[in-house]
């Protein structure tokens, strides 16, 4: 189809259009949780990126003379170890910061990959309908019938442990979360007037899908991405807790929790700090997703 110079089409059902900088800021003021959660996650990300610079100690350095030191605010603490040390005398604060690297790598890579895969299939199924939709919908049904645990046990048993298999397992199991929502959202958007207008104006189906429908589906994907990152952080922690994630020479929150569980009666802090950071991070992703949903939902915005 020939592309012609077109006047700006008003996007009737769009939640992206008509949103300048000021109303965007106003929205953030109405949803302070987005700022708080987003700010915390940004800080965590920066700490993870610059982990070697900001950690006070080497996360792997053992000092058995200084094992199971309590955190700085309690008696018998060493001020050099703010959050204390574990049973091998390794600095807990530094291990937490380095552990954020694994957690956030898994969260970002797995969520983006699952999101990309699910969104593409969902867009195609919702927009083209017909046999494409039939195939994708059947695929989702089959996937949902397979319980996630069974699938993850199977996957880890087959491909072995390690960062790649953790990410792969999350993507293989969770792409349906995106696909289902994007498919139904695309179905809804496709019925709207702005799509008809674009058809009348002679735009190709591909252009309509990528330039018109996709921008209106993206806010939903953004919300799902945030929630999925929270799920991925939990899954990674669970797998490293049971020793099915990365090798033990890389600090992970789940691994630290497992070590803390072993010596729970000698040093509660060894488990409490990684567990608290894990909960805080998961809640942050949840609140960010929830806030983004309220911000981008045209009904809730009023």
């Amino acid at each position: 189809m020939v592309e012609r110079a077109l006047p700006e089409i008003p996007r009737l059902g769009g939640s992206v259009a008509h949103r300048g900088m000021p109303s965007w800021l106003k929205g953030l003021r109405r949803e302070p949780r987005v700022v708080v959660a987003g700010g915390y996650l940004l800080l965590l990300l920066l700490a993870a990126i610059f982990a070697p610079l900001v950690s006070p100690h080497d996360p792997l350095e053992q000092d058995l003379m200084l094992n199971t030191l309590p955190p700085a605010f309690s008696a018998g603490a060493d001020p050099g170890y703010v959050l204390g040390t574990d049973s091998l005398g390794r600095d807990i604060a530094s291990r937490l910061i380095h552990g954020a690297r694994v957690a956030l790598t898994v969260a970002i890579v797995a969520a983006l990959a699952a999101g990309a895969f699910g969104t593409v299939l969902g867009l195609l199924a919702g927009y083209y309908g017909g046999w494409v939709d039939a195939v994708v919908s059947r695929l989702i049904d089959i996937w949902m019938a397979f319980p996630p645990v069974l699938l993850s046990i199977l996957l880890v048993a087959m491909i072995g442990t390690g960062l790649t298999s953790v990410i792969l397992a999350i993507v293989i199991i969770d792409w349906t979360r995106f696909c289902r929502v994007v498919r139904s959202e695309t179905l809804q958007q496709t019925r709207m007037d702005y799509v008809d207008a674009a058809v009348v104006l002679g735009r190709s189906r591909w252009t309509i899908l990528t330039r018109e429908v996709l921008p209106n589906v993206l806010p939903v994907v953004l919300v799902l991405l945030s929630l999925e990152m929270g799920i991925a952080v939990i899954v990674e922690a669970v797998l490293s807790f049971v020793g099915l994630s990365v090798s033990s020479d890389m600090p992970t929150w789940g691994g630290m929790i497992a070590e803390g569980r072993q010596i729970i009666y000698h040093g509660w802090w060894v488990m409490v700090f990684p567990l608290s950071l894990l909960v805080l991070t998961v809640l942050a992703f949840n609140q960010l997703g929830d806030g983004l949903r309220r911000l981008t939902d045209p009904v809730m915005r009023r």
Partner: protein
Amino acid sequence: MLSSRALRQVVFAIVTLFGVAVVSFVLLRVVPGDPIAMMIAPGASAEDIARLRAAYGLDKGLVAQFVIWLGHALTGDFGTSISMRQNVVHLIAGRLPATIELTLTALAVGLALGIGAAVASTLGTRRLIGSTVDNANGILLAVPDFVWALAFVLLFGVAWPILPISGRVDPRLAIDFTTSFLLIESLLRLRLDIARDVLAHMIMPAMALALPLAAVILRVLKGALESEALRDYALLARIRGASRLRVTLRETLRNAMIPTLALTGVQFTFMFGGTVIVERIFAYPGIGNLAIDAVINRDLPLVQGLILTFGLIFILINLAVEASFALLNPRLRHG
């Protein structure tokens, strides 16, 4: 007499189980390595190996191998666990009762908490109770069983040590049980001291599994109760002078349970997934804990057996949910 709907469900269940069996078989063949080498004891003679190879049909094609494997599986022969050197079926049968007792307890607790909270939230005259429940539930929904389990260990195992944090029964109390259903058996034998100890070991893992379930039930049931309360039959009952509690218990709860039940079935299968990690945390000797050991040790015969066990459990849960739909909704009984 089976209706055609029930028949369809059963046929679907068998097909699904067959699918799980195929996947579980392919798993053993896709993974590099000789399946016989994993089954035999070290130091077996070449003659033994050849005999096993023929017994499992490894000299034949893949389909023939599958048929032979399925034949073994149907007669309850899943081979020998590599890491534990025991018959896979015996191993699973010994651990399964612990998981069944745990998950059924968790299911009962989760249903009671979820339904109780949902009914209580309909009693509030104004929005106060409702919004409090909603806000608390928002947090409940975000916290997974893994975190609950560890929080309970810290709270009731360490900070205020009133509950044991690992195992299933105090070894000093253990008598020679004839079954592995320790809770049921000790209750039947009226050994209440043992039953109490088993319950004390079970309460924290069961709560960790029950709370996420209760949160989901609460959210769905509360919504369903609210919309049912606006229907004519419920309003009529109110106009005739029945109290909110009476209308909820006698009229709307039954209808609102139908969507809730479908969800409970799905969540109950998720709960079996949750046992994998929760049993690990509490060193509880169930099949979830066994599954992690099996995967860590790459014990493929055991993994296969466990996958089929989990698959069977999921299918039975789905059948049970379908059957209870028919009980609650007479329209589904025929057709």
